[in-house]
């Protein structure tokens, strides 16, 4: 009864590729795992496990100078609070964050608006603007260090030539001007990234919106405040976040301009000294974890705020 049916079953024969398809799906999964596995192992070995180890060791006393790794609870963390060197490094770091982030944002937005409004030569100006970001931070800092040189530097030379100062100043000798000098080098390097991020967002704003604002009689500043800034708030959030994280982790510029000088030493410089010169590994790790948490916390505040504001608009 069923034999003739089975013999005449071309529709089922057409289903033959089905197991092939299934095989392909499962072989896709296998191939996917094979391709992803080396990356997972690499990232685990070089990032996830080290971060976990950093957190773990920060509750222990780990130093090659003393045997054993006893549990010390929060002692590495409480020690930071009363350590004048750490407090000083945090103070410097907060200065860098506040000054660098605001300068990078304002200058980056200005550069982006200028580039967006240019009809000729935008490509070339953009290439010039991006160059400082592409150069090695250490080389930037060495060039600026030469510019700040008290005897033969360009800064004193220009200021004296234009009669703005009477005699050469030693810029790195007092804390206020030294911090500003380091910040400027950092801003010189990181502002271009903000300019590119904001320019990309500006280019997505349709021209009609500006024309409509002009018809409505809105001035230039009002258009900027009511049309442009709300429309690029997402990009502003990204620019703020990247500026903040890089400023929290400033190291190269401060290290090249003033080595370990307490006047300019940022928290990452303090960590480097603690771990690799004093060999107090776990104390440095407690600082590392704190920097990581603080920089993630501060940037998530922006992200949430910007997210909320754009949603309400």
């Amino acid at each position, binding site marked *: 009864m069923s034999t003739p049916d089975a013999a005449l079953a071309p529709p089922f024969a057409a289903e033959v590729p089905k197991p092939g398809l299934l095989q392909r799906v499962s*072989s*896709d*999964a296998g*191939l*996917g795992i094979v*391709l*992803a596995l*080396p990356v997972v192992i*690499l990232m685990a*070995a070089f*990032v*996830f496990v*080290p*971060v976990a180890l*950093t957190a773990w060791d920060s509750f222990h006393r780990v130093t090659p100078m003393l045997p054993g790794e006893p549990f010390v609870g929060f002692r590495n963390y409480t020690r930071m609070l009363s350590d004048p060197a750490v407090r000083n490094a945090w103070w410097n770091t907060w200065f860098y964050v506040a000054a660098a982030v605001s300068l990078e944002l304002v200058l980056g937005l*200005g550069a982006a608006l*200028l580039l967006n*409004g*240019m009809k000729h*030569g935008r*490509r070339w*100006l953009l*290439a*010039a*603007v*991006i*160059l400082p970001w*592409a*150069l*090695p*931070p*250490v*080389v*930037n800092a*060495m*060039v600026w260090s*030469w510019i700040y040189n008290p*005897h*033969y530097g*360009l800064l004193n*030379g220009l200021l004296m030539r234009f009669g703005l100062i009477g005699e050469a100043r030693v810029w790195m000798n007092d804390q206020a001007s030294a911090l500003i000098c380091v910040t400027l080098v950092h801003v*010189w390097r990181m502002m271009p990234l903000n300019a*590119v*991020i904001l320019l*990309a967002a500006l280019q997505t704003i349709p021209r009609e919106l500006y024309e409509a604002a002009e018809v409505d009689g809105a001035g230039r500043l009002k258009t900027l405040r009511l049309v442009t800034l709300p429309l690029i708030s997402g*990009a502003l959030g*990204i620019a703020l976040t990247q500026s903040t*994280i890089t400023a929290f982790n400033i*190291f*190269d510029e401060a290290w090249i301009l003033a080595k370990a000088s307490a006047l300019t030493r940022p928290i990452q410089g303090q960590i480097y000294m603690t771990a*690799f010169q004093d060999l107090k*590994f776990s104390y*440095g*790790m407690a600082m*590392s*974890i704190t*920097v*990581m948490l603080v*920089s*993630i916390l501060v940037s998530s505040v922006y992200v949430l705020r910007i997210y909320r504001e754009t949603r309400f608009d």
Partner: protein
Amino acid sequence: MTALHLRRAGMALAAILLLIWSLGPVYWALATSLMKPTDIAASPVNLVPPSITFEHYAKLVGGLFGQPDETGIWRDFLRALGNSLVLAGGATIATTAIAAIAAYAAVRLEFPGRNLVFYMIVATLAVPGYTVLIPLYRMMVGLGWVDTYGGIILIYISAYLPLSMWLMRSVYESLPLSIEEAAFLDGAGRLYTMVRIVMPLALPGLIAAAILTFLGAWGQFAVPLVFAPTAATKPLTVLIPEFATKNYVDYGLINAAGVFAMIPPALVVIFLNRFLLSGLMAGTGK
């Protein structure tokens, strides 16, 4: 009419200021590297070299052309230049290749946990690289990988892979699936399709990922400061600052060395700017 003119003049002035701010320090490094020591130390300051000299460059690479040189700086310098090229080049090739394959797996191949893996890797972008330096140092000392190309390149890959994977994922997602489906219908396998059909289409994205990795690795300072203590692996970024720690600081020499280190990134900005910008925008903007 006059308002428009005024506005144009304002924009031109702003463009000139921006240009001076961006290129001024680079020009100053180049000018200093070409000045005689007496002109460098002149007062008032020389904005343009009164006469051009290549003596600082000769100290760095002259030995290569058989010039007698008592300082021996050129050996250290060329060694460091070679190290920089090997470290940045190796990291760039490896990172781009791994990102190209792993991001493809994350976009096109269904496997359990693929989104978790992808987002965990990208989330490491929020972890400052410095956080892991201390445990990495202990690990590398234990393995005997400090001061080896392989060890340092592995650190660079783990640092720059997340951004490259993020970038490559957005590139693959923008490619139409129909091309790959057509290849399957023609009997092409997954790997063949990935390498021969998808990769060529994703080439601009691959170039952008390679550029971002190269610039990052070429400019790295903190990682080699810790992991490249001797001439065996020490790159330019660590060697050049050492020129300044002696009692006498030779600014002509430092700036000439700095100009050398600026050449590869400057070439990238001049000739590959289109890819660099698209990479930056895709890498940060989406």
